[in-house]
């Protein structure tokens, strides 16, 4: 017995000594110098100078100032969520990532609480737009630092609208229907995505539903209310709008389709981000000259809405040095740095900080101003309910998009709403 005790004690001594030595080394490493590098994972921008600005200006400037190298890792358009999922699930990979939509909620437990720096940055930048809080605050904590909103607004041919008697963009959906009917007859149909893309479909169909008074769920996030007279009116309108202003192709469109169609002068109006005007200025100057941008029309409720398409930056919990990552975020969001980044993208990312509300970037191209003005009426899919897992499922299953698309393809209003209602009840059963 005494021998056993002695042997165990020796092992203990060795284990404790080894652990103390290794722990000491690790502690010294952690407590000592800052990390040599940090990695930011970002979806490739539709505005190429935006990525180049980070790589060539911001990252070298930060390295010069602090000695910390910032790696800027880009992912292809549409694949960022998969990459963020991989990093969050494996606890490996980049230290920081650009996130979108409701991802702050989806990845909540794997993201560092950045309330302290969000408040600091907000205070310095004149406060945050309310829309950014909708996307980044989870259970009272900021889980990402808001960056900018990629607004989805109306892009239209001013010359063709003018030819059919519309000098200004129609203020209501009914007005737009009237213009579209005339334009289709004149050989210039509209083209709004009704297929399974990831942005341009939600960009106009949720706002359409909301502006007619329709909702998926109540603000309690549980009670499904899609089966309403308001939804029925929105669906009826959408069908008429589709039949009188568009071609059948739009039912199968994905996000690139409307850009291609607009820039090849196949359509006179679509719902898209600023990228159409940006590319037109670069490659199709004649089209750029006659391209206008406008907020979404008002519905029968007298209100207009827009989809919130926010980009934010988050820090993963697996990042070894949270403070170093937070310091970088604070530096990045300083107006001296972030102002240049916004400007190079020509307001494609509408800043969420109020201090940029009247910044020169908006006056460089006044046609972009509607993107700034749309922030106050922008919401995430599922509004007015708070962000939730069932809401993500509803978006992933295209419940609202397909409700409208099926009606446009010929199904009755009653049937498409019944389908959506059944799906939503199934999805929200656990809410």
């Amino acid at each position, binding site marked *: 017995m005494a021998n056993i005790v002695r042997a165990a004690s020796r092992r203990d001594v060795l284990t404790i000594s080894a652990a103390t030595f290794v722990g000491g080394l690790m502690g010294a490493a952690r407590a000592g110098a800052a990390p040599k590098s940090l990695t930011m994972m970002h979806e490739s921008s539709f505005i190429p100078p935006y990525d180049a600005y980070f790589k060539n200006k911001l990252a070298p400037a930060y390295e010069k100032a602090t000695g910390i190298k910032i790696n800027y890792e880009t992912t292809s358009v549409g694949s960022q*969520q*998969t990459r963020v*999922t991989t990093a*969050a*699930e494996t606890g490996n990979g980049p230290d920081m990532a650009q996130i979108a939509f409701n991802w702050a909620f*989806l*990845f*909540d*437990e*794997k993201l560092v609480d950045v309330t302290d720096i969000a408040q600091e940055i907000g205070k310095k930048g004149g406060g945050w737009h309310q829309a950014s809080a909708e996307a980044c605050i989870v259970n009272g904590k900021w889980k990402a630092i808001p960056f900018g909103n990629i607004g989805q607004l109306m892009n239209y041919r001013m010359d063709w609208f003018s030819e059919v008697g519309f000098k200004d963009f129609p203020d209501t959906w009914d007005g737009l229907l009237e213009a579209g009917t005339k334009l289709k007859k004149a050989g210039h149909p509209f083209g709004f995505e*009704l*297929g*399974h*893309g*990831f942005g341009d479909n939600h960009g106009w169909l949720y706002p359409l539903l909301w502006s007619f008074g329709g909702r998926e769920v109540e603000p309690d996030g549980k009670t499904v209310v899609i089966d309403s007279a308001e939804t029925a009116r929105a669906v009826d309108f959408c069908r008429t709008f589709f039949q009188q202003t568009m*071609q*059948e*192709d*739009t*039912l*199968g*469109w*994905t996000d690139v*389709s409307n850009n*291609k*169609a607009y820039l*090849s002068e*196949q359509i006179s109006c679509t719902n898209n981000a600023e990228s159409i005007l940006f590319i037109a200025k670069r490659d199709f100057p004649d089209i750029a000259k006659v391209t206008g941008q406008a907020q979404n029309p008002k519905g029968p409720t007298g209100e207009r809405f827009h989809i919130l398409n926010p980009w934010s930056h988050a820090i993963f919990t697996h990042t070894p040095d949270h403070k170093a990552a937070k310091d970088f975020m604070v530096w990045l969001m300083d107006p001296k740095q972030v102002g240049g980044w916004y400007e190079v993208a020509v307001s494609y990312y509408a800043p969420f900080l109020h201090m940029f509300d009247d910044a020169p970037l908006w006056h460089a191209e006044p046609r972009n101003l509607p993107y700034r003005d749309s922030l106050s009426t922008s919401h995430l899919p599922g509004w007015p309910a708070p962000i939730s*897992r069932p809401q*993500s*499922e509803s*978006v*992933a*299953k*295209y419940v609202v998009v*397909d409700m409208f*698309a*099926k009606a446009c*393809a010929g199904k009755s209003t009653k049937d498409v709403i019944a*389908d959506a209602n*059944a*799906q939503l009840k*199934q999805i929200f*059963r*656990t809410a």
Partner: protein
Amino acid sequence: MMSASAPTFAAAAPRPRRRSAFRQWTEREGVFGWLMVIPPLLFLLALVGYPFIYGIWLSLQDRPVARAGTFVGLANFVADWKDPVFWQVTQNTFVYTIAATLLKMVGGLGLALVMNQEFKFKNTIRALMLLPFIVPTVLSTIAWMWILDPAFSIINWLLRYFEIANPGPSWLGNPHLAMLSLIIVNTWRGLPFYAITLLAGLQTISPDLYEAATIDGASAWDRFRYVTLPLLRPVIFIVTMFSVIFTFADFQLVYVLTRGGPANATHLYATYAFDVAMGGGQLGMGASIALAMLPPLALIIFAMSIYMKPNKT
């Protein structure tokens, strides 16, 4: 000379080697066999077995992305059962697989029979035939996206040029045409695989059999029906089995062309599972949709093995 070479002979004579016990043990048939099998077995376990078992485990959990899961038994499968889109996806997958496989089988057999003839530039043409299979799917599918594009479609341009239709059909906008388009693209891509494999099978058939059949008065059709087809059945079975598996679980083609639209008309199991798991952050439910592929696929393979496997008698 002789005296000088004598010691050389003595040195070159084989020396009795003392084999170590370990080496003798490894050379035993039973042990050597296992040594050869274990590496691929470990490889399969790591890259197929583990993900598969993990997939089953995920499907039995309510497992939101980036959060811990809770065991829910078969609740995800019950939810799938009640999901109307799941049934539409099931129907789409069957239509897509059956139509594309049949087209590939008939077309591939025809192509193989043609390629089995003697003609000029035979080898070059055989090599070119493989192109659709060699080009990365995403690249060739993007080319198809332009071919089927409403504004830039070469097909629609031809239809307009010859005044057959104006505007042309909406290849990806109409639900039925979208599925037809996907089947055509899948057939185009998979045809060379069928053709080249069947061609290899055709070349193993002895010309003597055809000669004998001809002497017996068999027509070209008879030779095909009673010589070619029975001898080709084992190859047809294998190639069809592979094709069914690949087509049933297809992802890239749909994801690039339609992403499952319009209104889920082209969603397959794989694309729907991906949307739910990655887009919706519901890993458990996504896994249950992906696993739902397994029973019907196993049934199809089982049925095929009954109807298509060559008789051993």
